[in-house]
Structures are given as C-alpha cells and as structure tokens.
C-alpha cells in the first residue's frame, strides 16, 4: 500500500463484442491511495463498465490496468476480492436472507472454496454493522428493507471483504436528500480510515460535496482527471454534458447552474 497510485489505467479500450461500438477508447486515468474519486459523466458513457474493468470482471481489448503496480489479470481472484469491494447500484436478492447472513457473504474472499463464516467472521460483520449504525437491522429480512437501508447493507457486505478500495456504482442515485447526505458522510469516514473510495455519479453536485479527485468522462474517454477542483470547471463540465453549465460558489460550497431555458 505504499504506492501513491492504487489503480492505474493506461490506454484502455473496451467493447462488449466485435460487432458492438467501443464503450471506452484509449482511456487513461490513475486513482490515488486514500482519495475519494468521483467518476463523473452523462448516462451511458461507460462509468459502470469502467468499474467492472477495475474488478477484472471485464477484460479490456487493449491497454493495461494495474492494482498496486501489478497487472490485474496476473493477480489471483480471491486476492483481488480482498483488495476491492463492489457496491452495485441495485442488486436483486432472490431469497429472504437475514441481514447478518447477507453481510457475512462478504467474508467469502477470506474463506476457502469449501468454507463458511465462523465466529470470527461474524465478529467482523457485527463490527461493520455497528460502524454503519445498522446493528438493529441484523436480524431483518433483506427483502423487507427500504432503499436507503438496502444501500447500506450492500456497503456492509462489501466492507466485510475488508478491502483497501471500495467501488460504488451511483451510490446516491436512489436516495432522498437525508439519506444521500448520510451516505456521503459515511464515504468520508471510510476515506478517513485510509480506504480509497471510488464512485460513479452522473450528478456533479454529488462530486462537489465529497470528492477529492475526479475523472470526467465523455464519449468513452477521460476528458480530464486529477484534482477535483481543477477537473470540474465550467468549461470541462459543459464539454462533458454538452450543455452550458457554470460552476458557482455559494457560501463556500460549489454548485452548478445549468443554463437551461425551461419549456421552449
């Protein structure tokens, strides 16, 4: 964990099949250790695809992805799972697992193929549920949770992997204002604990509120990446979203105004 850059993407190109369009084209970016990085861009720009590439779930047709300086394809699967946790945007859980059992599934990378969670693993689970403030949900049925609670248990399951890097796909997309704020504060707390947090969002305001770094995407490429302040400028955002957007500072917080005309 000494390398300042935990993930580096070099010249990544990816498409889902030979007859499909390129989703990503020669994308390069790097993610710093301990940063909160927002992957920002319009819908369908390939943000989720980028997360799957970082997990090794998809393999790029060209380019190299390195985790801690090692090529991801050369790292054993369970080792990758101990380094990176994924919090999908939505997850269908077809059976009524108890929250504690569902969270314990995150222990899989620490167990063998034939293993099952032991007392020690349940201690880790209890600790994580407590840290997220959802110990009261432990015995509840995962299918009976609210949207905000469901998002929290997905994070709990990923944290049970005890990863160094947490990837979150649109973590605030389905949350109301209070839950959104709670979620963002929690990501800040995780970053304070030396975790590298990487999340996708289509909403620049979410990026402004907590990100230290940003990767701004458009047309399968990173049009800017690095320090959040220098990436998320009026000019870059207008370019990414193809809309006249201006960044303003209100009481010390950055907000965007899209200069839309309303009904025309």
């Amino acid at each position, binding site marked *: 964990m000494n390398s300042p850059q935990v993930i580096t993407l070099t010249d990544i190109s990816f498409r889902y099949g030979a007859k499909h369009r390129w989703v990503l084209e020669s994308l390069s970016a790097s993610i710093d250790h301990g940063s909160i990085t927002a992957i920002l861009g319009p819908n369908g720009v390939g943000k989720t695809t980028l997360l*799957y590439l970082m*997990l090794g*779930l998809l393999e790029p047709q060209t380019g190299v992805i390195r985790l801690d300086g090692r090529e991801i394809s050369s790292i054993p*699967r*369970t080792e*990758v*799972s*101990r380094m*990176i*946790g*994924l919090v*999908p945007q939505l*997850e*269908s*859980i*077809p*059976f*009524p*697992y*108890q929250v*504690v*059992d569902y969270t314990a*599934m*995150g222990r*899989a*990378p620490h*167990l063998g*193929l*034939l*293993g*099952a*969670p032991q007392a020690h693993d*349940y201690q880790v689970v209890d600790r994580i549920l407590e840290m997220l403030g959802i110990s009261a949900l432990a*015995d509840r*049925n995962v*299918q009976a949770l609210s949207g905000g609670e469901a998002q929290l248990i997905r994070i709990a399951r*990923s944290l049970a*992997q005890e990863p160094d890097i947490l990837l979150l796909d649109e973590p605030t997309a389905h949350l109301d204002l209070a839950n959104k704020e709670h979620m963002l504060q929690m990501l800040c707390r995780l970053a304070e604990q030396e975790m590298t947090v990487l999340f996708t969002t289509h909403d620049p305001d979410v990026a402004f509120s907590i990100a230290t770094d940003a990767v701004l995407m458009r047309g399968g490429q990173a049009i800017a990446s690095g320090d959040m302040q220098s990436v998320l400028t009026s000019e870059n955002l207008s370019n990414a979203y193809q809309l006249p957007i201006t960044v303003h500072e209100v009481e010390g917080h950055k907000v965007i105004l899209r200069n839309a005309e309303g009904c025309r």
Partner: protein
Amino acid sequence: MKHRNNKTIFGLSILGLLLLTALSLFVGRYPTPYWMPVDRMLEDPLARRLVLTLRLPRILLALLLGASLASAGAVMQMLFRNPLVEPGFLGVSQGAAFGASLSILTFGSGSLPMHTLAIGFALAGLVGSYILARRLRFGGWVLRLVLAGIAVSALFSAGTGVLKYLADPLTELPEITFWLLGGLWSGTWEDVLNVLPFVIPGLLLVFLLRWRLNLLSLDDETAWSLGASPEKERWWLLLGAVVATAALTAIAGIVGWIGLIVPHIARRLFGADAQLHLPGAMIIGAAFTLLCDDIARTLTAGEIPLGILTSLLGAGVFMLIMTTFRVHLKR
C-alpha cells in the same frame, strides 16, 4: 446468536429421521398388515430375511431419493435464483423417462439396460440443455438455461409419446405407464450399490459447497466481486445435483414435487442461508419420501405408486404453505 436455535431444530430433525427409519423396518404387510411386532422379528427367520433383503434396501433408496431430490431442488432454486424450479426441469426427468421407455421397448423389463438408458438419457438431457443454452443468442445465462431445459424436455417428452404410441398396449404400455408413475417396489441391494457411486459424490459436492450457493444466488457481478466464478461454480453444483438425481430417477421413475416443495419447507424452518437449509432439505426430503414410501407399500395389499403419493401429499403441503405463510417471490 440465531444459529443456536437452528441447531436445536437440526438435532431434532436428525433424531426424527433416525426414529422414522427404525420404525419403517417394522412397517409393512408381513406377517399381518401394517405392523410387525418386535419379538416376531427376533424369532422368525423369514421375517428377518424379509426385513434385511427387501425392506432395508428399499428404505435406504427412499432416504437417498428424498435427500437427492430435495437437495437438488434447493441447489437449482438458488442457482437459478428462482424458487419455482425443480431438479428435473433441465431435461433430466424427461430424459430419464425416454431412456426407460426405450429400454422397455427394446430390451424388455431387464433392470440393467433400463437403469443404464435412463441415467444415460437423463444426463444427455442435462448436457443437451447446457449446450443449447450456450448457443442461444438471447437473454442472460440463467434465462437461456431455463429456456433450453424447457425445449429439451419437450423433445424428450415427444419422444416418450412416440414410444408409448408404438408400445404393445397389453404388455409394454402398462409397464411404461407404471414406471412413469414412480416407485421403489423393485429396489434391491444391487440397486443401492449401483446408485452409490453417483449419489455419494453428487451429494457430497453439493453439501461441501453449500455456503457457496448463497454467493451464487446473488447477481453475477456481485458474486464475481466476492471472488466466485459464477458460471463455472454453477455448472459444478448443477452437475453434482443432477447426477445424484438422475441415478435415483433411473431406479425410482418420476417422483415429483419433493424437489420443489421440500426446499421451501427447509428455508422456512432453517432460514434462507444455504449453510443450514441445504442439510435441512436433505433431512426433510429423506423423511418425507420414506414416509410416502411406507404408506405406498403398506396401505393397500397392492402397491400405490410413490409418485402419486408424493404429488398428492406434496401438492397438499404446497397449497397449505402458499395460503398460510408469506412466500417471497421477488422480481
């Protein structure tokens, strides 16, 4: 924690199963209908021989059949993320039926060709479904396997129909029909030994990988992010479940409903975590099948086909659960 509670139910279930197995040895139509007194078994050499050579292997087959069908059902429901699938649907049941019918028409009622063809075509059904699913250009992996299973089952079912149409209505047709109704009346020690090489590895694989089933019931991306290889692991578990089921189907015929209904009862009693509910399904499946088989061979002077009883009782239990309890059918 909650697991202590489950262990109590677990211990009681195993105890109940052992008790039922012991009682089943005394249940039957010799020397008088329904019950053999204990001292009779000790004194009467014929009674002892009957229990050891006829009842015991049949009881063992019923236990294995129930455990295999129920655990295969539990495995498939989790792998297919669908609580309504059952072990035979990937072309396995219909494949076995076709193989058995073919054997009756070509080799008469010999048990070796019948078992060989039944298990051969059951596995052919599985492999056929798998290959077809790989070639389908439509939907996700699970949907493709389900569609392929339906298509392959329909093919075999049509084939069985043709064989029934061609069969001699006085000799072969009744035999096919009786086989399709399912039953263990012909079960011998030889059958027990023949199925063990399939059943033990199949059930062992499923049992050892049971916690893994939880991961595989999640979305593919999530399962992958937890270090699982969803497609490969699903295939191995499927193979284990189906091989055990196919071997026993070859002997017992089509015994329905156990694979569908028992996993539901097991999840209700032991929770959704497969670490506990899979062994639970094995125990309940074994007990339910043994109970049905006891009734099948005892209630009347003739034999009631086992498949009829499991469907009758299974459907009853299913309706009871669907109407009394809350059932989670998400998506």
